[in-house]
């Protein structure tokens, strides 16, 4: 298993140049979680209205996989209906469990995280942002 499978360029790019990494004043949803294994920490903020995810941002710190995954999450979910967002979140989780073959078109950059499946310890890192988002939705 080559390291490049895990640390794909697109992942490192999201890590070094995170998208939508900022607070979101007035966000309807905000939720924070950490991964005690690595000390990764992520807060997701989202504007939700009319059944749509109008805007998603994140804050946090941690390893490249957790932070890149959060950055990709904000890009992939912004503009979707809540239902579509939930579908992507559950497909992403399925991909990490090795159960779902992702749809390349709707997954975009997220496909790059597929390599993490072969590193079981790191799956938690990749899933953290998605946990936070799903919990935010459930609490919202």
């Amino acid at each position, binding site marked *: *298993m080559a*390291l490049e499978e*895990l*640390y794909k360029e697109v992942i*490192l790019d999201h890590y*070094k140049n995170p998208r939508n990494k900022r607070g979101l004043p007035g966000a309807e949803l905000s939720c924070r979680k950490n991964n*005690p*294994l*690595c*000390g*990764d*920490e992520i807060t997701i903020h989202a504007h939700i209205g009319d059944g749509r995810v109008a805007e998603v941002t994140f804050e946090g*710190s*941690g*390893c*490249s*996989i957790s932070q890149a995954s959060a950055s990709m999450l904000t890009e992939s979910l912004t503009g979707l209906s809540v239902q579509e967002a939930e579908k992507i979140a559950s497909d992403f989780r399925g991909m990490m469990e090795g159960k779902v073959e992702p749809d390349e078109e709707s997954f975009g950059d997220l496909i790059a995280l597929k390599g993490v499946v072969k*590193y079981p310890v*790191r799956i938690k*890192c990749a899933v953290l942002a998605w946990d936070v988002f799903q919990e935010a939705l459930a609490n919202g």
Partner: protein
Amino acid sequence: MAKLIERTPPALDVDRIRKDFPILDRITHGKQLVYLDSANTSQKPRQVIEALTEYYERHNANLYRAVYELAEEATAMFEDARSRLASFIGAADPSSIVFNRGTTESINLVAYGFGRKFLREGDEILLSEVEHHSNVVPWQFCAQATGAALRYLSLGDDGLLDLSDLDRLITDRTKIVAVTGQSNVIGTLPPLRKLADAVHAVGGVIVVDGAQLVPHNPVDVTRLDVDFLTVSGHKMLGPTASGGLYGKLEHLERMDPFLGGGEMIMEVYPDRSTYKDPPHKFEAGTMNIAEEIGLVAAIDYLENLGMESVREHEKELTRYAIKRLTEAGAKVFGPDDADLRGGAVSFWYADIHPHDLAQVLDQDGVCVRPGHHCAQILMRRLGVPATTRASFYVYNVPEEVDALVAALEKARKVFGA
């Protein structure tokens, strides 16, 4: 000259030692294994592995209760292990050794059997900022149950515990001081005798987390005058779930039992029971027989090497690692001087998250531990979310530090840091 020779313990013959550890021949990801995670768990020499096999092939039986020869052998071997561990840490009486799975179980035992029984509201338990969670959480349980308060010795910027206000921290209210013998993260070696004297002067006791101390240093509980010392066998070449607790008999006798069950009782009635004398009062159910017997082979091994020599060897490796890591641009945490610390070397490198770093190192066969090392209080004190830790033992050589540094440089390339 003769004097000098007397003072310097003989150097370890590491080439010969390495031949005793079959796992060191492992290839991982196509590379020679470089195992720098002995603070997590140590590797096992062939002698320990063979002792386990021999026990299971020749002597396996449950203890005490059977009357046939096998059971007598197993019981004698188990009790011999108790004597051997006692003498290894300088305890005069084998009955002061309670066998269990190691440090976590031992501290829980003391926090429950001693702490809950004797602490009251207004009492204080003094810990330190470098403690492993296993020497924090059981005391939180104890404090919540008794109303006692937790206080902390702080860590100085020099990586040593700040004892400047010890008089203020250890008072008549202090019933327990619970500190590590050697930090699992930054190697700090608290002055145990000094802390023991200070807490004894106010009528309290000292509990030492010996998980990292005992495998790497000559230890004499009588000279240190500690009340309790925990031993994790798996970190000192022994099997997992071996080791236990040393406690002064006067304490063990008046403590409550911890786990109830078979073999720890004298008489059982519907509403009450009476208990055996220590240590058996604290040993309920079928014990970790093979593991404690296997630990004897580990003790033999270490005694053959000489603990002074073990300490000296690790000091040299630690000194070399601090030098090489610092030259490579890493920030090394803990005391700068290897004489003042043990061989757990935590560092931060090139702003690469420790989990990413350790993952890249793994590809080169280099095993280190990333994370908070079960010491979140210390991580906050150091101002980092996690560190990467390399730790050494009797089988490590300077070339493995070189391999670590070479792999770090590779990681820097991967992350363009």
